[in-house]
């Protein structure tokens, strides 16, 4: 390995590390607020990337059907509850948010040809299609069982993951997609070439992380989420609804996932099931942070990215083995440093 290759690998590692860091943050956030280990995080990455690719190829992305179906299901659940409680005034709003909005979006997609739109609008459309799925899934799948054990919630998560993978295959087919780069700019440092897309990924990740920091430190909703993470019951007594906190954290996680997918789809080909491994690598990072600390999780994720990148050079066949075996020494270290194993 010469310096040029080392730099190239490092660049690759930092790029994927930045993505893993974003995902790790989302995972820590969701776990802290709702106790859900959000295995389907990776599916949002794939759905984001493939929805954008579909829009650019002028196909109606399958995610719109999922959006419509989930919206209808929520409208039925909430509308039914409103009918039983005789709160008829709520029904128009329920229908508007859950049925009319997705229908409008679908109509717009059919009416205009998304392939001709400028890239930022395409990205925005893709996010509008994918991000609402997060809170909708929370509302339908997690909220009814919000009080069960972490273990049961984990099994629910795996079930959601399996469902979404199957739907991903149905929506997007087995072929992978790669979107054109956001920018063709590249810089040369001596022999090393720095791709503009790489810089974009890293900068966008950093901006997002800083934005999240301000969200949690400076805004009321951010503080409400932190309060829920620290003490669920206490936060509820202070008037912070668990449902709101859950939906908000799932919205953030879905947005981070979908946006990560959009960021990396010009760099790597994304298949309907690629998200799972990407999300799990975010997990390895998050576990390094003990599913609790944001900075350690982010640092761990970058470490995972670098490890992956360098091991793909030395032993490319064993890349995944190395990355996922890393979790064992990490867990061992955590188990030796954790004092209270569990309190019944």
């Amino acid at each position, binding site marked *: 390995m010469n310096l040029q290759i080392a730099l190239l690998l490092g660049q690759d590692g930092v790029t994927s590390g930045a993505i893993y860091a974003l995902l790790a943050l989302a995972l820590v956030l969701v776990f802290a607020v709702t106790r859900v280990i959000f295995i389907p995080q990776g599916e949002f990455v794939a759905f984001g990337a493939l929805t954008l690719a579909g829009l650019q190829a002028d196909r109606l992305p399958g995610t719109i059907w999922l959006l419509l179906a989930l919206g209808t299901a929520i409208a039925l659940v909430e509308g039914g509850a409103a009918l039983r409680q005789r709160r008829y005034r709520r029904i128009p709003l329920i229908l508007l948010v859950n049925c009319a909005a997705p229908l409008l979006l679908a109509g717009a997609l059919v009416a205009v040809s998304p392939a001709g739109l400028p890239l930022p609008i395409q990205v925005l459309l893709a996010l509008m299609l994918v991000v609402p799925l997060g809170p909708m899934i929370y509302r339908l799948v997690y909220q009814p069982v919000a009080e069960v054990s972490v273990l049961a919630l984990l099994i629910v998560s795996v079930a959601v993951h399996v469902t979404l993978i199957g739907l991903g*295959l149905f929506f997007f087919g087995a072929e992978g997609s790669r979107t054109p780069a956001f920018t063709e700019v590249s810089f040369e440092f001596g022999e090393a070439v720095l791709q503009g897309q790489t810089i974009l990924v890293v900068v966008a990740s950093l901006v997002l992380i800083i934005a999240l920091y301000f969200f949690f430190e400076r805004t009321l909703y951010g503080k409400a989420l932190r309060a829920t993470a620290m003490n669920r019951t206490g936060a509820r007594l202070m008037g912070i609804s668990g449902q709101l906190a859950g939906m908000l954290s799932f919205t953030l996680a879905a947005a981070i996932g979908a946006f990560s997918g959009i960021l990396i789809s010009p760099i790597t080909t994304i298949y309907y099931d690629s998200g799972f491994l990407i999300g799990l690598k975010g997990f390895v990072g998050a576990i390094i942070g003990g599913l609790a600390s944001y900075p350690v999780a982010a640092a761990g994720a970058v470490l995972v990215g670098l490890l992956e990148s360098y091991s793909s050079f030395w032993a490319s066949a064993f890349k995944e083995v190395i990355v996922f075996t890393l979790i064992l020494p990490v867990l061992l270290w955590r188990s030796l440093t*954790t004092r209270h194993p569990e309190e019944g």
Partner: protein
Amino acid sequence: MRRSPYDTYLLLLFVGVLAVAPAVLPEFYVTLLNYIGLYSIVALGLVMLTGVGGLTSFGQAAFAGLGAYTSAVLTTVYGVSPWLTLPAGLLITSLVAVSLGLVTLRLSGHFLPLGTIAWGISLYYLFGNIDALGGHTGIAGIPPLQIGEVELRSGRDFFYLIWAVLLGTVLATRNLLDSREGRAIRALKGGSVMAEAMGVDTPRSKIVVFTVAALYAGVSGWLYAHLQRFVNPTPFSLTQGIEYLFMAVVGGVSHVWGAIVGAGLITVLKQSLQDWLPRLLGQSGNFEAIVFGLLMILVLHRARDGVWPMIDRLLPQRVLHGSFSGAEDLPRRPRPQAGSVLLEVHDGSKRFGGLVANDRVSFTVRAGEVMALIGPNGAGKSTMFNGISGVDPLSSGTVSFRGQRVESLPARDIARLGMSRTFQHVRLLPGMTVIENVAIGAHLRGGKGFVAAACRADRSEEARLLKEAARQIERCGLAEQMYESAGSLPLGKQRLVEIARALAADPCLLLLDEPAAGLRFLEKQALAELLRRLRDEGIGILLVEHDMDFVMGLADRVMVMEFGQKLASGLPEEVQRNPLVVEAYLGGVE
């Protein structure tokens, strides 16, 4: 354990149907049944792990892969007999399971499943990328199993072997759950604090149940390798590992038969979905995942116990209890001499961050006396209890029990020395019967392990343990509730069950945390009478209680605590007259 009285007949019927099945069914169904059998063995391990032990693994397919690949390599490359590769595969499986367990089981419950996901993926890629293991193409030409002169070449021949192994595992599992070690595993689900206080080595129990589940998977993998006579990485992937968990959950994760029902349902469903879903959707692909995922969510929302309890409900129920009246009594530990010092706490302090919950508290408890610890709420009484019993050790100070320093021992070792306790917030296993709950208290008075339990070599010891449990239950006045589930009793009675459980450990020192709360007047009188009798037997009793009539009528000595400090101590009458105590309880006169 609760069982249907027709259980045995059902089992016989089941065996009968199985015996004739291969003779009458077409090849396709025999193959299907073979797979159901193989999957059931793995799912059964998950029932033990998830439904009974409260742990979860997504990596069972990888354990099956270890069993399969070990046999594949040893038979094809080294020509070892398949019957020798089974123990070799199981050895490797258990080594991996134990190391994985050691790494993850000390952490909170969700790290084990996450660890197994990572391990499932690692092993899958490892199988697929090592040339010696055939890479993604796999290993072909695995020899068939041979019993005597008969080679098991066809699915029909294999059928009996698979289902015999499955039935063997079902019986062993059922036996194991209905035993001393089984109760310890079942206690894991209620959190480790109570189990540890009763002397159960909970990390060991967790590792054992995880290893047993892994071994079941290993056996299934070994059978698979010789049935298919070909292995590749696909059937041992994480996807399959997830499917195994689905089988257990859909079938009924807390029931032995749930594993078979679940494996059958999922396998048949998968078969038919793979047939018509692609036709319906107009594409080819594994779309059954969508249905499985939704089905799982539905089960977890609407019927968390799975399908088996719905079937079970249709069968008449009866509580089975073996006769133990003829069993010998358990040996009792020698009583310390009445009046000798049992427990001595010196300068015991406990700090939670900046909060000092116990501040240099010293006291003694003697054999044959009732020492009461009283004080307003938040005075630090329960904290002191947890410190003495090792549940949450003191920050500083010493605790001597029967002349031995115990302040840094884990709760289970202190329990072994003869200290037993109850909890302020009742910690019973609500789904288990009263006698099973109480028998957990006698855990340390038996010694038979997992293997003995699985093959029913523990029956005489088990009868003695149950007899002892029954004796303590009768003593606490609960004879009528002996076979009711503990969760169905009113809170006051549950407290009595806790006392019976503590007594089943044959303690020298009994720590009772608010035993009279929630009891009615007559029940309180009966409890006081019981405690007096225990005292006369030479047991030392340390009591935390708010009911002053109860305390003052019973205690030999009283210690009053306030804000973590010792306020006063002495005879009940002295303490009652102490102006400091009066002020603490009633407020000072301004």
